[in-house]
């Protein structure tokens, strides 16, 4: 176990948000650089379609409240997304300044705007008066909160059931403090409450309240339960003292921000730590272990470097933290001495042909066993599925995920589902969960016969240009130059 105790100041320093907030001047300078593109690609690159040029222009003009409103109009989880989105893969990656110039730091600007709004306590939305319709939302993570907020804006009563004592899902418990402090997630939750949604914590659907009860008491149900706990490795030695699971390990550091950093003094961390898995949670767990004082942290992964599900920027970050990698290493046994972990026995893997999933197959090499000495093993090998929950709601599944159509309707007409629990393929992102909540809320509202919220823009329409054809006017598109141009020149004189 950890030998040199860290001071509270050291811990506070190591477990705080990596990027400092922009000062007003920094934000103004960065916002000023935005070209305000027509039909900006960043809008399309955002899964929730945030009108990026409009919100950045509002920052530049000093209308920060308006900037945050623009963000939240498209994404009620924008406060988290500004911090945790893989922006290089999304909005920033599409910025026209990217190729030869420095792209706009859209995430940092988004954070600047939402920070200001949440600090001010201003509520920019007027919600419709609550009608007679009631919707139950299962899970208070990004998808559930987004849906509940969107429903509340439309005057639909939303009650969110959350099994944890704190709402927010992975934003609250699973994303390392360095990227998103717990405060941010809880501010976001509070905002959804203020929109009118009710959030009940410590209520496990299936135990404390049954699916049948929800189905009979509510007009519709939105399942946004995420995924289950980290599954067992299924190898000998897994119950040894010193084997932990990544999500609860990370959750401890999140709670410490809220409940007092001294909490981390009691969090056991090994001297030599092995993290099994190579997704974003594994990366976060490895970071946490290093920052808690582990002398060496090694990520063991059964496939190769290029197969890692974690983002490149996260891998670069964790390498910079001093974390090592053992690729092509398949754990087969946790070794122990006196009931405590002493090592991890692995098999060397060999890569074969590309399989149906687009990745090269990995097969063990005979007689290649080796031992990685360690005193702590952290499991980060994905999360289990929630098959029983879906069965209880009469929802068809596919490979353990709820099967949904484009509007996130399940096989049960009263039940909708979104977020990680429907994420059969692709990255399970906070922002895609937020968009799922939005899509589901709209579909639910339609199903319940509730009209769109006041001021709601049709999908694909932005205020900064393009997709504005919803109103037909005399400037209608003329397909050919030879067609009389006078139409398009209507009102133009000179």
């Amino acid at each position: 176990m950890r030998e040199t105790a860290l001071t509270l100041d050291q811990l506070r320093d190591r477990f705080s948000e990596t990027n400092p907030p922009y000062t007003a001047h920094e934000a103004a300078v960065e916002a000023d650089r935005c070209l305000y593109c027509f039909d900006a690609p960043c809008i399309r690159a955002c899964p929730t379609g945030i009108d990026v040029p409009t919100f950045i222009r509002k920052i530049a003009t000093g209308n920060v409240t308006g900037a945050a409103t623009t963000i939240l109009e498209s994404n009620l989880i924008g406060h988290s997304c500004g911090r945790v989105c893989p922006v290089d893969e999304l909005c920033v990656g599409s910025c026209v300044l990217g190729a030869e110039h420095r792209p706009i730091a859209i995430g940092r600007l988004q954070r600047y705007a939402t920070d200001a709004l949440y600090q001010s306590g201003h509520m920019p939305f007027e919600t419709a008066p609550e009608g007679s319709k009631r919707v139950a939302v299962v899970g208070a993570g990004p998808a559930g909160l987004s849906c509940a907020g969107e429903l509340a804006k439309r005057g639909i009563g939303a009650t969110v059931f959350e099994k944890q004592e704190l709402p927010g899902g992975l934003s609250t418990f699973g994303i390392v403090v360095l990227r998103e402090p717990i405060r941010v997630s809880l501010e976001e939750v509070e905002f959804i409450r203020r929109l009118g949604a009710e959030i009940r914590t410590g209520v496990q659907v299936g135990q404390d309240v049954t699916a049948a009860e929800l189905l009979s008491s509510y007009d519709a149900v939105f399942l946004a339960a995420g995924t289950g706990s980290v599954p067992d490795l299924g190898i000998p030695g897994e119950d040894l003292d010193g084997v932990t699971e990544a999500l609860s390990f990370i959750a401890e550091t999140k709670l410490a921000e809220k409940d007092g950093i001294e909490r981390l003094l009691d969090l056991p961390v090994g001297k030599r730590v092995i993290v099994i898995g190579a997704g974003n949670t594994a990366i976060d767990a490895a970071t946490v272990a290093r920052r808690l004082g582990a002398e060496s942290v090694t990520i063991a992964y059964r496939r190769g470097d290029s197969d890692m599900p974690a983002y490149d920027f996260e891998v670069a970050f964790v390498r910079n933290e001093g974390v090592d990698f053992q690729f092509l290493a398949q754990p087969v046994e946790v070794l122990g001495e006196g009931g405590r972990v002493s090592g991890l026995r692995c098999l060397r893997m060999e890569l074969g042909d590309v399989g149906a999933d687009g990745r090269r197959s990995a097969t063990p090499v005979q007689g290649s066993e080796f031992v990685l000495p360690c005193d702590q093993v952290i499991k980060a090998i994905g999360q289990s599925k929630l098959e029983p929950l879906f069965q209880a709601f009469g929802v068809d599944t596919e490979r353990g995920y709820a099967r949904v159509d484009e509007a996130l309707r399940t096989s049960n007409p009263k039940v909708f589902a979104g977020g990680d629990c429907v994420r059969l393929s692709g990255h399970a992102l906070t922002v895609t969960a937020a968009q799922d909540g939005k899509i589901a809320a709209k579909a639910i509202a339609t199903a319940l016969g509730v009209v769109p919220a006041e001021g709601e823009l049709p999908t694909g329409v932005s205020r900064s240009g393009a997709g504005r054809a919803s109103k037909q006017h005399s400037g209608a598109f003329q397909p050919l130059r030879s067609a009389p141009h006078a139409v398009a020149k209507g009102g133009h004189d000179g």
Partner: protein
Amino acid sequence: MADLTSTFAGITSPNPYWLASAPPTNSAYQVNKAFEYGWGGAVWKTIGAPVLNACNRYGAFEYGTHKLLAINNVELISDRPLETNLREIREVKELWPDRAVIVSAMVESTPEAWHDIVQRIEDTGADGIELNYGCPHGMSERGMGSAVGQVPEYCTMITRWVAEAASIPVIVKLTPNVTDIVPPARAALAGGADAVSLINTINSIVGVDLDTFEIRPNVGGKGGHGGFAGPAVKPIALHMLSAVAADPEFGEGGLPISGIGGVQTWRDAAEFLLLGASNVQVCTAVMHYGFRIIEDLVDGLSNWLDAKGADSLADVIGASVPRISAFGDFDLSFKSVARIDESSCIQCNLCFVACDEGAHQCIDLTVDGARIDPAALSSDARPQPRVREEDCVGCDLCSLVCPVDGCITMVPVESGRPRVTWNDLVRDRSDVTTDWDAMMAYRKETGIDIH
């Protein structure tokens, strides 16, 4: 190395950069320091009638994060006693015999007052005197400054009082707060001035505080018009300079012009020289950055002259004046069209929206070469803006909004029409200039198709 030595109305200085009469030339301390940095000359902050200043005195015109695109001020002429100024001017001139020391003055509008101040200025050994006919606030209400500059007859009269008493060159500083700056310039010439300088500051209210509703600069809860100066006024100054420089009547007098108004860099200075200024005066840039900017002002101008193969300032002074014309004499057969270099285009599509909504609808958005409906963009492919050259009116807006240097250029193309000006039409085809049917017939006849 080109020779930057400047001779202005007989006054020589090692370079054409003078500090304008303003806060940076308020004291011997400042002017000595400026000369140490290498400034060619200084026009002392206006001396004359007793004054009492207010505060706040300055307000800034800002844009985005760019500070001080211009300063607005309600500061008056020097509030230091006349004797103090005169003593310091003498000391400075004795210390710096090779620099131009000019004294700006403004006194009550009587011959006695002007004769007296001219004599006292000459006694300091100063190289010249500048008559402040421009100050738009505080002094104008007392019948001085722009109150004089706005009335050509007063301008001639006072210039004459000064010229008859002065043995050193007399420079008349003109106010821009007039509809046409040429009559006051001619008036200065008629009064016997040796040179003019332009422009003084422009009447302005620089802004309103959105929290307190106070006018900026705020003087105890109130505000009023002040004088606007700095980079933002340069285009107005260049216009007024060109109007005077191209005026034949003023030209007959052969008076040099000192260019003032938003000179911040050597590039600005070079433009003033090309439009006929023999030297330039600088204020706001120094108020923003200090005297040290003189190094690049000199170095940049020198390198530019070398690059142009010019040996001295004389080679470029007024070189663009023959190009000053007016709409009636523009060649209406000249045609240019916008061309987009698609290899450097970043598809921000600012040119499209500018052309479509702000100009003449000649740029299309295309995907794989096919025009698409911009209101219903759905493709993941980034649309490429493309100019319909046959429709392009050559307005140049697209290239102005394009953020990529060199991406959109205006290319001259053969119109196939003979040279013709509006004045030609007025003279030869007056029906075309007065009657729409005749105009349309003329367009058809000459093949002008405006889409």
